């Protein structure tokens, strides 16, 4: 018996992430890949989408090191004296996605290089508020 496919939404996206898988969707009509779990293809409007497992490999395309932090990250100890890095990752399969960038020195942004190779990082995943994160490959 095959498992019922999961609904294409953020709940499924983050459930997969907690299981260690970065799952986006692929449009069966036009082939467009999306790193977000969308129930409809934004390019051709087809509802024929399927889960697509991303390799978790990518490159850092832009980033920022944030010192004035949202409440959720202040709770984790980030702030003026302990900034964190977030960025835009271009995935090996093509699409881009926003993600936390771990394993870099956010207090010294000049040491972080756009273009650096990244890999999906699951080790610091928060069970309650899972977030996509990458680290140096």
């Amino acid at each position, binding site marked *: 018996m095959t498992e019922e496919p999961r609904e294409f939404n953020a709940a499924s996206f983050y459930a997969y992430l907690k299981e260690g898988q970065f799952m986006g969707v692929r449009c069966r009509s036009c082939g467009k890949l999306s790193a977000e779990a969308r129930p409809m293809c934004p390019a051709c409007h087809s509802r024929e989408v399927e889960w697509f497992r991303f390799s978790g490999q990518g490159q850092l395309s832009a980033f*920022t090191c944030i010192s004035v932090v949202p409440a959720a*990250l202040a709770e984790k100890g980030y702030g003026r004296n302990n900034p964190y890095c977030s960025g835009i990752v271009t995935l090996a399969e093509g699409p881009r996605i926003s993600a936390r960038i771990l394993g870099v020195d956010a207090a010294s942004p000049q040491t972080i290089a756009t273009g650096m190779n990244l890999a999906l990082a699951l080790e610091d995943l928060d069970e309650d508020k899972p977030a996509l994160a990458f680290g140096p490959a």
Partner: protein
Amino acid sequence: MATSLTSAKRRQLGRPVSIVGAGMSRFGAFRDKTSRDLFVEAFQDLLEHLDQGIDVADIECGYIGNYSADLFEGQGHTAPILADWLGMTPTPVTRIENACASSGSALREGVMAIASGMYDVVLVGGVEKMTNLPTEGVTDVLASAADGLYEVPAGLTFPGIYGALAKAHMDRYETNLSHLLKVGIKNHNNGALNPKAQFNASLRDMLERRKARAEQQGGPVPDWRDEMDFLNDARANPWIAWPLRLYDCAPITDGASCVLLVAAEIAANFTDKPVHIAGTGQASGRPLHDAEELTSLSAAREAAAQAYAMAGVAPQDIQVAEVHDCFTIAEIIATEDLGFFEPGAGPRAVDEGRTALHGDRPINTSGGLKAKGHPVGASGVAQVIETFHQLRGEAGPRQVPNPNLELGLTHNVGGTGGTCVVNILRRG
């Protein structure tokens, strides 16, 4: 492919629409004022300065931009409350929410309501009361204008997303931190000439005042020689979201703005100096990670193309502009997206002083969001107000020195490019 600024379908208004009056509250931090107090202040300013007056009962409809009184003040359903406090009930008033482009969108709704033929006299405006919350709270409320499922969990804040845009611009072009700081210096110089601005002072004045205060208090006096020294001092100008610092960010502001729109055919009943809506455009964009480019806002290019097509003008024809400088990098990108400068040429234009009050392309003569203040829901219409005053030659000490001023433009962005509204105004 980026949108071509000459490719938009040419849409036209059903009939011409004019702006005949404008009013604005003081922008700043006002502990005891609520949205309704701020909007009443703006409305009174409008009534006092409407050349030939109006009976409020003659206003047929209203659209008010407001981002989030719900989260900032715990007040939803703000439109009828404002209608009541303006003494306008039972006139229909609708709240429009498009983040920081809320009142830009409200203005468009008003323009279309008149162009449709349904109404002749419409009030449009915007209001935001932001300073009740601490900075962390404001950061969270503003972040809710980004994608709560795929951007916010990644730790991206509103300054954070613009920080990433800035980094991408620096990687691709010659842009550096000094270019960003120079935008802030310029806008503060303009804000110093605007009595309604939150920062009605140049950065030079602000740093001299700080030095004087330190001297009075007998503490160590900072050795800043000029604005750049001050802005490069990490204690005076701390990082918010590298490469953006405190003085790269628009402040947290309370304020309200409104203008009176009428069918052009009756504009003479209100003023001898109407300003006409020559073109208007609005577009939607995607989160930065799904954007075509990391150095441009596609919605801005599309909205601009629509507005240029409707007005039948080109970027080179625009003589004065208010652009959405929620962050210094946003102004540089705006001047490129609007076609004033080639992509990547924005920073050089700043270096050459071309966007200063006396430059050939004055940008943000009001002080911009940076110095005038950024009560998010009020900013789009406040930009229109500055352009209205410039085109009527009544901008006082910050009037651009161009005797043939005819065309102005406003560029109002919601969030990080999810919405953009561009209006082109023509002197009547």
